[in-house]
């Protein structure tokens, strides 16, 4: 049951100037999947989607805010702005936006004539109600709440213009607003009870939530009155599909078998070996859409022994043989990363030289760090304490191939004397272990648009746990100069300056040996090849079925 992370925060950077985005706003079709793209699209038909992610507990992504919610909400909810493949912000429910000189006030002009599927018109009051809903503690929003952290108030300028007033300039605001966790819902629907809204959220999207059979499926039907596709969509008017059955199939082998047999049309969380098998199968194709934000990486807890010593951190990284494992375990579907950021982030900075497999150097470093003796089992010790690395592994978040990779890291680092203790556990226990600081190494994926994810993950303020015990800076990086660099980068809008600041920050993190990058957050979809026109939204790589049709 690979379940991708539950925390996804949102403050985004990489905000291109609104005017630039506007000029490019005319339809830029995405590269999409499918064979007969020259044929004219067929209307109608039912598509069955099988998700390996956990079934959401609430279909309103304002509540909580995790990836499974984003996946399905993309079909029935829409955001103020979106992002194209070039990384530019493009219009969606907002047609234009202007930032004040001091960066503390943003005016968004809303699209005309858009109605929620319950008949409520989309206007400034609706957006105001949504911001209020996300910021209301009773909603229990975490992702959306964090993303709007700098939004102090909203103001209705006119029925079609809403003003956001910020407490600090936020160069990440626009990218935040591209994410499904900040989707705009019907204000009338939000007034219903939380339980009702969780089961039947109402938006402006191309599909409508019709029925939710728990542990089985969500039925989505076409919104016949749909008028508001994002600027990069391939067509106008209602969606082609008349219905989507959104199923939950936690077992990866079953999911693939169902796809092969044609019982489902699209699956997510495809396992590496089935991706390779699918390439050899005529009836199947792949859509690869790595998630933005951080790369998948192992965080070394620098807040306590043994990894509070940089030499020991470097020794661990030098002793871990990662490349051969990735090659075999992922069958060539994943590329090794040497960066803290996803390869889809333009500002990602790589430094392969730091992560070579050099056991000899690792041994020298450990000698220098004082781990000079070895015990009966061959593990290094210092003052009678074994060189132990406690590594809690979330079986919900790490796919089997990744867990095997950890086993290989355990085996190769053992050669230089590390005793890596892999502790598989369910998500709740995993968070509890982190909250208790009961870990030395951990892999925690993190999805978020833009390099500002670095501020969430490596600012020293993120070491302080939230009341729930959660904290994002799992490497416990505590460097004042890094904090200052990241803080500044989040506020400047000059592209060159931001880029330089983020490079400095990433260098500090990589060269301090706080993390061992592995690969991008894998996000592979497999589909029957008669599914035409499926694309992943460039914001957080969720699939959008608006342009999709069935060639059968």
């Amino acid at each position, binding site marked *: 049951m690979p379940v991708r992370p539950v925390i996804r925060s949102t403050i985004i950077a990489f905000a291109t100037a609104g005017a630039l985005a506007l000029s490019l706003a005319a339809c830029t079709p995405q590269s999409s999947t499918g064979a007969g793209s020259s044929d004219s699209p067929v209307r109608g038909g039912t598509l069955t989607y099988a998700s390996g992610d956990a079934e959401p507990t609430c279909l309103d992504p304002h509540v909580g805010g995790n990836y499974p919610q984003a996946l399905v909400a993309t079909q029935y909810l829409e955001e103020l702005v979106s992002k194209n493949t070039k990384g530019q912000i493009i219009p969606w429910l907002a047609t234009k936006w202007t930032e004040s000189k001091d960066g503390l006030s943003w005016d968004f002009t809303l699209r005309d004539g858009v109605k929620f599927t319950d008949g409520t018109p989309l206007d400034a009051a609706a957006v105001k109600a949504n911001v209020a809903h996300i910021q209301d503690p009773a909603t229990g929003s975490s992702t959306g709440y964090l993303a709007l952290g700098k939004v102090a108030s909203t103001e209705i300028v006119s029925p079609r213009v809403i003003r956001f007033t910020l407490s600090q300039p936020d160069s990440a605001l626009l990218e935040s607003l591209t994410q499904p966790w900040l989707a705009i819902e019907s204000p009338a629907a939000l007034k219903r009870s939380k339980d009702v809204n969780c089961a039947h959220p109402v938006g402006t999207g191309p599909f409508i939530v019709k029925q939710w059979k728990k542990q089985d499926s969500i039925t989505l039907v076409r919104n016949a009155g749909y008028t508001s596709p994002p600027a990069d969509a391939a067509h106008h008017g209602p969606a082609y599909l008349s219905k989507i059955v959104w199923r939950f199939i936690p077992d990866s*082998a079953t999911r693939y078998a169902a796809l092969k047999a044609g019982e489902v049309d699209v699956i997510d969380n495809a396992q590496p070996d089935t991706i390779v098998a699918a390439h050899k199968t005529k009836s199947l194709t792949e859509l690869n859409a790595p998630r933005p934000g951080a790369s998948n990486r192992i965080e070394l807890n620098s807040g306590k022994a043994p990894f509070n010593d940089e030499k020991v951190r470097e020794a661990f990284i030098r002793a871990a043989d990662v490349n051969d494992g990735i*090659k*075999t375990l992922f069958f060539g579907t994943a590329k090794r990363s040497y960066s803290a950021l996803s390869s889809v982030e333009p500002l990602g900075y790589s430094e392969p030289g730091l992560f070579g497999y050099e056991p000899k150097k690792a041994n020298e470093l450990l000698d220098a760090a004082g781990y000079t003796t070895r015990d009966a089992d061959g593990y290094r010790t210092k003052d009678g304490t074994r060189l132990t690395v406690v590594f809690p592994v979330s079986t919900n978040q790490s796919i089997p191939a990744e867990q095997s990779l*950890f086993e290989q890291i355990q085996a190769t680092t053992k050669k230089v004397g590390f005793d890596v203790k*892999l502790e598989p556990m369910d998500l709740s226990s995993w968070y509890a272990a982190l909250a208790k600081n009961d870990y030395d190494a951990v892999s925690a994926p993190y999805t978020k648009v833009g390099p500002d994810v670095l501020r969430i993950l490596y600012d020293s303020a993120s070491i302080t746990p939230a009341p729930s015990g959660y904290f994002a800076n799992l490497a416990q990086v505590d460097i004042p100069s890094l904090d200052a660099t990241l803080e500044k980068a989040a506020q400047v809008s000059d592209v060159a300056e931001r880029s330089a600041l983020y490079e400095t920050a990433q260098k500090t993190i990589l060269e301090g040996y706080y993390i061992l990058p592995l690969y991008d957050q894998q996000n592979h979809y497999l589909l029957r090849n008669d599914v035409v026109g499926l694309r992943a939204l460039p914001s957080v790589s969720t699939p959008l079925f608006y342009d999709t049709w069935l060639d059968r």
Partner: protein
Amino acid sequence: MRRAASAGPRVALVVCALVVLWLLACAVAPGLVAPGDPLAIHPLQGFEPPSLAHWFGTDESGRDVFTRVVHGAGPSLLIGVAATAIGIVLGVALGTLAGLGPRWLDFGTSRLLEVLFAFPGLLLALLFIVIYGPGITTSTVAVGLATAPGYARIVRSQMLAVRGAPYIEAEVVLGRPPLWRFRRSILPNVAGTLFVLVTLGVGQSIVWASSLSYLGLGAKPPTAEWGAMLSAGRTYIDSAWWLTFFPGLVIVASAAAATVLGRTIQGRVRGS
């Protein structure tokens, strides 16, 4: 069962005995049966099908599956035996209290057993593992706890039957103290049944522990344990059948062999 023993071909019994002997050899001296290191990885030689070099193929990390199966016999059988032992000890304790104690104690213990019976076994195991964290020890204890009520019921009824037997009543008349009666007369009578239960329980405990591994609650990696190997290999069922076939084969073979031996012994005990 008398009939079963005489009707069943001896060949099966011999095969089962050989399987058990081989398993015991693997458990006691795995290094002699398969000299390799079950944890040695060769990342670039992963997913190799069975060959002369690797009889059972290699797994996702290039480890030799045959070596892992052989070295896995120890921990896997230990889970089976230890879980059964925990179940039996608890079962005997509860069953004895109920079977030999005063009436109110019997009543209380019987109700307790009923409650445990009504509690889904897997849930008991699940809760226990979630509380104490996964691993061989916890899954062993969990399976043991889940089996205990079953044993307790049998022991209780055995105790009741033996207590009422004429020779025990004779001992009461002779003025033997209760503990003496328990140790010298009752326990030996119940022991035969218990021995049979052990052989039957071992196989089932292994199967149940493997199900816990499937749910991600079993042995910690990289321990070579059959259930964990089976559930890890399952992911690759489409491309590498040998990863599940061989661990599955030994689980079925060991559980089946233990059952056959248990049934045979049961037949002998009842027959005599």
